[in-house]
């Protein structure tokens, strides 16, 4: 038994927008793997819900004519992992979301929910940041597209305006083309856990595979919201593919990240793991890109 005030089922994106305007206090529910848990805990007890779960138009991964990847917001984690386009162009995202919870959660949980939740530990978030994903929101005024770094405002707060719902996440071609990435979820057990640290790296190597043409690194749980490590990225871009540079790159992340001390993990452990993960992620990305270390 869930303590809810009302439940509205959306029949189309347009209908969802109308419901949002008509019930501004209502919470949006997709798969429910976060919302229902929080209702039971009492945090969202007694709320009104607008379900978008039946909107199949928001499911699936497609490649647009310009080469951008478009992931419908209701696409489940398991569908993302198994999608051929994801596997071909942005394998690391499929691998990252395959580490969410357990199989049942991955079947019901959606990438839209994972990002709209606004939590720093979301397994999709660091990879989406590292790929400079674009978040598509549909509202009364039509479609709005914003970079994912602007979508996250602060811990648990994202930029969804009255009447809006998130409808897609887009990975621009320029971002995913010719890249290879790797994600490390650092958690206390091998399943059913939330990241103590999440690190996602992707690299684009020069034709001879000896130089880093472009490197992007992003973290979850290294601060209140997912974040890139610009100093580390700037340091390594254009540098030779060597272990020495990789070690320096990894330590450089400490200039960017700001993990906190809590009972869940000390700041010292989180920093240590962030550096080690940066190193391992970039090494694995280089290997995947055909580079040699």
């Amino acid at each position: 038994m869930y303590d809810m005030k009302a439940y509205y089922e959306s029949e189309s994106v347009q209908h969802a927008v109308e419901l949002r305007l008509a019930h501004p206090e209502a919470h949006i529910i997709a798969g429910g793997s976060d919302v229902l848990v929080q209702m039971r805990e009492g945090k969202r007890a007694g709320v009104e819900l607008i379900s978008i779960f039946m909107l199949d138009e928001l499911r699936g991964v497609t490649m647009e004519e310009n080469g951008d990847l478009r992931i419908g917001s209701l696409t489940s984690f398991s569908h993302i992992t198994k999608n051929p386009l994801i596997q071909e162009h942005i394998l690391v995202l499929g691998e990252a979301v395959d580490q969410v919870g357990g199989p049942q959660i991955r079947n019901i949980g959606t990438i839209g929910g994972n990002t709209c939740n606004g939590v720093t530990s979301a397994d999709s978030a660091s990879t989406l940041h590292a790929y400079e994903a674009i978040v598509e929101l549909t509202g009364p005024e039509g479609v709005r597209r914003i970079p994912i770094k602007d979508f996250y405002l602060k811990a648990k707060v994202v930029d969804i305006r009255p009447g809006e719902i998130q409808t897609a996440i887009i990975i621009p071609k320029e971002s995913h083309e010719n890249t290879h990435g790797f994600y490390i979820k650092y958690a206390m057990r091998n399943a059913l856990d939330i990241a103590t640290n999440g690190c996602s790296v992707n690299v684009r190597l020069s034709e001879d595979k000896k130089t880093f043409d472009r490197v992007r690194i992003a973290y979850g749980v290294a601060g209140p919201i997912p974040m890139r490590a610009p100093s580390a990225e700037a340091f390594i871009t254009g540098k030779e593919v060597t272990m020495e540079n990789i070690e320096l790159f990894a330590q450089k992340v400490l200039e960017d990240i700001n993990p906190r001390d809590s009972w869940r993990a000390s700041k010292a452990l989180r920093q240590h793991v962030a550096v080690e993960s940066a190193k391992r992620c970039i090494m694995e990305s280089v290997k995947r890109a055909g580079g040699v270390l």
Partner: protein
Amino acid sequence: MSRHVGQSVKRVDAFDKATGRAKYTDDLCDKNALIVKVVRSTIAHGFVKSIDTSEAEKVPGVVKILTCFDVPDIQFPTAGHPWSTDPSHQDTADRKLLNQHVRYYGDDVAAVVAENEIAATQAARLVKVEYEVLPFVLDVQKAMEPDAPQIHEEFPGNVLKHTSNIRGNYEEAIKEPGLICVDKWYDTASVQHCHIENHIAVAYEEAGKIVVISSTQIPHIVRRTVGQALGVDWGKIRIIKPYIGGGFGNKQDTLYEPLAAWLCMQVGGRTVKLDIPREDTFISNRIRHAERFHFTSWLRPDGTLVARKVDLYSNQGAYASHGHSIAAKGLNAFPQLYPCPNYCGNAYTVYTNRACAGAMRGYGMPQASYAIECHVEDIAKELGMDSLEYRRKHLMPVGFVDGFSKNELYYDSFNQCFDKAVKYMDYDRKRKEYENQTGDIRKGIGIATYWYNTAVWPISLEHSSCRMVLNQDGSVQVQVGETEIGQGADTAYAQMTAEILGLKDYRDVHMISTQDTDITPFGTGAYASRQTYVVGFSISQTGNILKRKILEYAVELTRCPITNMDIVDSNIVRTIDGRVLMSLKELATEALYSMTHSVHLTAESSYQIKNNAYSFGCCCAEVEVDVPMCRVQLKKIINVHDCGNLINPQLAEAQVHGGMSMGIGMALSETLLWDEKTGAPLNNNLLDYKLSSTMDHPHLEAQFVENPEPTSPFGTKSLGEPPTCPVAPAIRNAIMNATGVAINELPMNPHVLFKHFTEAGLINDPWRKEN
């Protein structure tokens, strides 16, 4: 010898459980039941000054709200021990149904009874409690300090009990010149059982009695404690125990049955349901005692143990529950496992403001095994000896008899178990290969053993009663008080009954799985790894009585002398020539409907067991340690047990798998945490409490050495709890083999490894030095 015992037959409840047909407490609850929510204290220690229920009572659907000011002024014990008529052996009675003096964060202060769960939950949130806040203490040794907060008026100084075990003269013995001293501390964590079905109790009045359906391991004990808590004659209480979703010792305690019964009485006997949520299960049921050990061992250079001092501090939490029994078990086991002429052991069980600790699979021995088997590893390292060789030399020798329990080591069980583990793991080769590794990823292998016994004699009562009823078709109903709690006890009972009676098929034994204290013969329940052992006595005794009655009836029908008859494959057989005289079915039908001599062939008897049995084994674990990531991956693991003859090998294996899993969690990830500033529980949910998952386990190998136990009618002894005991120390010793670092605290999770690896210089973060 046997057709049924020793076979991996299917569980008698397999189909019902797999198809969802098996009924549990909630399935039996009237759908119109009133729902109870407990209001819990939001301080760790203090007094309830007042409770304002006015807002809560306005919630539609609320029937009644009762508080700690309404309950009877009766303190009652909860431990699932057999009652003792000797007051000095009775369990401590230190809690009321709801408590004004609250002693842990989450203590029961009020209860809301409402028409439905939402109303009950909403109202519970609106109950306003005013407290007088007192200081609290979470650490066991800090609770023993003179100025520590005093938790129970009856126990000044917070020590619930202190016992000593003194042998020889420790102080004199350590004066011997040339002794090597190994002095170490070991710490285990507070962990929880995490059975899949939370505790739930349903109560209603019927026929002048209070009926409680409960998820419990111990219905007959709970009948007594509910009677005590309510101040009601025990015969007026009826406890029904259906199938339960695990217990592991948590339900070897009186949990919320008395409160449910009392609340039912406050609402005119209407059915009330008290279904404890998972979050509350972590804090308001029972947990494993966190124990701290100080070992000082004095050895000759050849390894001879001259003297040993052990101080054991057991964190009891807020209420006594099983209390000192747990610490005492460990304290008394050490000089048996590694005999020592000069032993000075002291154990203290101390109240703190943590959640209440009680029975949990292994009853103190997983903690004690961790401490002693880490210590033995440390001793061997100090002496420069191989630790397995040290164990083989210094463990209890064959023929050892414990003076108190009269338990005897009849066989070379330790070495036989070690040999099997060593062979499976390729231990000797790997142990050498893994010494002195460098690099980020290191492998290690470790071994550990344990001490265990079977049942509780002679500390406490051991008794089992059994009833058998013959049906017209030659099948039998069997009832015992020792409960099926998922471990497969009913199947073992069916196999043993079929064996004793000479039935063709164990499925001709209909186990009445549900215990109902109005109907089921007296038995104290499931605990102490005792069920198969103690029921073995009552089934063989009762089975033989029934068999005798059947054969006596057969004499009337066949005129064959009783000495020349037996029951074989459900037939009455003339033993002289093997001729089948008649089927058991023919006999049973005739016996009931005979116009000349009609009789219902039944048997019932009690057996008081005045025996106990050692049960031994070992665990060997191989790990891969990712040093920079502070993570341990378990690569390969085996438990080998000598639990006597196996009644059902497949079920025995399953017991071992479950115990190993629990040991793995205790070793690597599980620990309950409390906020040092507020005393509030931090991780009382299955996300933050890191119960290990199947993804954290490799294949769990279970092997056995089957030395028949001489005291048991079926040659069997304990296996339920032992598998949990040796796992954590085996893993710890494997990590030490891999890295050289001794981790003397549990769990060995990344936080702990980070600290120890940093101290040992394996991790060296340059940026931390600059700070």
